[in-house]
């Protein structure tokens, strides 16, 4: 479903964020990308989600080559993914409900159909009672859940999360990971980047370990 072949990403100025990355992620897999901060985890996720383009190698999503995608086709590519950003990127000038409704509006779904889906997503992450609240009134864990609800509301086949447990305590983090596992169990391909190698990674997950922009120990399971 997702295939990287000798992918490199060099930023202007000559900095190589990623070098010679090759791996494949099967449909329906649960994958963790680990590594120290600055190892290139976020860059890797951005390459998968067609937010950035590789400067070398090929990235195949489904059967489409992201490197050669027309600019006008990129938005439609991005819609295949549910994205949970490291900094959430919630919109603080609108309610929880409206935040979750945004991806649906982009897809042209409005009205009662949209409301039904928004409530289903909020229910899934346990925020149904807070739909009228503003994001600023939510706790850190709740904001993370809101970001997840927005990512899953348009029922993407692939769910991508960048450091979803980054600044949560152990209990909250475990809840969030359990939430992602539940999506994995219903067939969603889940990819999570985390610097926190210990503890939170389930034993059945595939792990890609990045070190200074290069891949180490592809496919290994955590002990």
């Amino acid at each position, binding site marked *: 479903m997702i295939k990287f072949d000798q992918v490199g990403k060099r930023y202007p100025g000559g900095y190589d964020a990623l070098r010679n990355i090759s791996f494949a992620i099967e449909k329906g897999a649960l994958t963790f990308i680990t590594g120290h901060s600055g190892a290139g985890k976020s860059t890797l996720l951005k390459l998968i989600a067609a937010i*950035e383009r590789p400067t070398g190698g090929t990235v195949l999503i489904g059967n489409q080559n992201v490197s050669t995608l027309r600019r006008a086709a990129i*938005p439609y590519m991005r819609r295949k993914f549910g994205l949970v950003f490291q900094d959430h990127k919630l919109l603080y000038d609108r309610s929880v409900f409206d935040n979750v409704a945004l*991806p649906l509006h982009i897809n042209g779904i409005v009205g009662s159909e949209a409301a039904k889906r928004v409530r289903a997503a909020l229910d899934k992450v346990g925020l149904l009672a807070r739909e009228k609240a503003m994001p600023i009134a939510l706790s850190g864990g709740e904001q993370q859940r809101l970001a997840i609800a927005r990512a899953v509301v348009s029922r993407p086949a692939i769910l991508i999360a960048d450091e979803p447990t980054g600044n949560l305590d152990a209990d909250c983090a475990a809840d969030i990971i359990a939430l992602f596992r539940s999506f994995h169990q219903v067939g969603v391909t889940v990819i999570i980047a985390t610097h926190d190698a210990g503890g939170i990674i389930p034993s059945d997950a595939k792990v890609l370990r990045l070190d200074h922009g290069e891949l180490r120990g592809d496919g290994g399971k955590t002990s």
Partner: protein
Amino acid sequence: MKHWLIQHREAFKLIIGRMRHTPLATLMMLGVMGAMLSLPAILYVSVDNLSRFSGGLESEPQITLFLDRDTKPDEVRQLDQRLRAHAAVKEYRFVGRENAWQELQKSSGLGDVTAGLERNPLPDAFIVRTSSADPAAMEQLQKELAQWPHIEHAQLDAAWIKRLYALLELGKKAVLVLAGLLGFALVAVIGNTIRLQILTQREEIEVSKLIGATDRFIRRPFLYAGTLHGLGGGVAAWLMLAGVLYLFNRSVADLAQLYASDFLLHMLGLRESLVLIAGAAALGWTGAYLAVSRYLSAIETD
């Protein structure tokens, strides 16, 4: 198709909602644009009314020779022959006093004045067109003709109409220039408003792009905002113009009554009104499009 309609309806609703959210700012904005647009519109209406007023008048300069009231028919014939032989006369016609009297009674506006007179006060007259339109040559001819026998008065008229026409031409050009300049200003004002809106919605635009919004989706509400602002500005200008004309017409009617005329300033016709309002909307769209193209590319995510 349905999908497309929904997208447009949503963008429209969003912008109407935003405008209602800040009614004072929106009204101010529409007022400013209305005032800007009403200036060329007022000038246009003034020029239009002036040319309407002068439209019925003769535009070629001519010399009118009023004869002494006791001129005999054969003396008139002698004058006729002298005019025919004169080199500087291009054409001429005789207007008998009875004809002139009937014509005057028929012509609008002055009926009340003529009804008050018991007998025909008009003399016989020749109306002379000169072969040269040069004002100096015409003046010379007028002086010469005034010396002829049985001519009580030789009047060089309609020169002022020529000047009026020249002025009207100038006025029409001024309308175009003013409309062009203020149209440009309108594009700039709306562009700036849209730029500010884009800046305040920067986060939303960024997130929307990241999760798969097309450029078109992002542009659409801003284009609606620009078009609606322009439309509102056009309507505001029309209302201001109507108000100004109403105000003026009360004085114009008083003035016209003194001249026993029913002259009134005319409002823009249906077509001209549509041009004003549609033109304003188009300018709004243009301003928004320029701003959106310029500033959305600055918010690039790939």
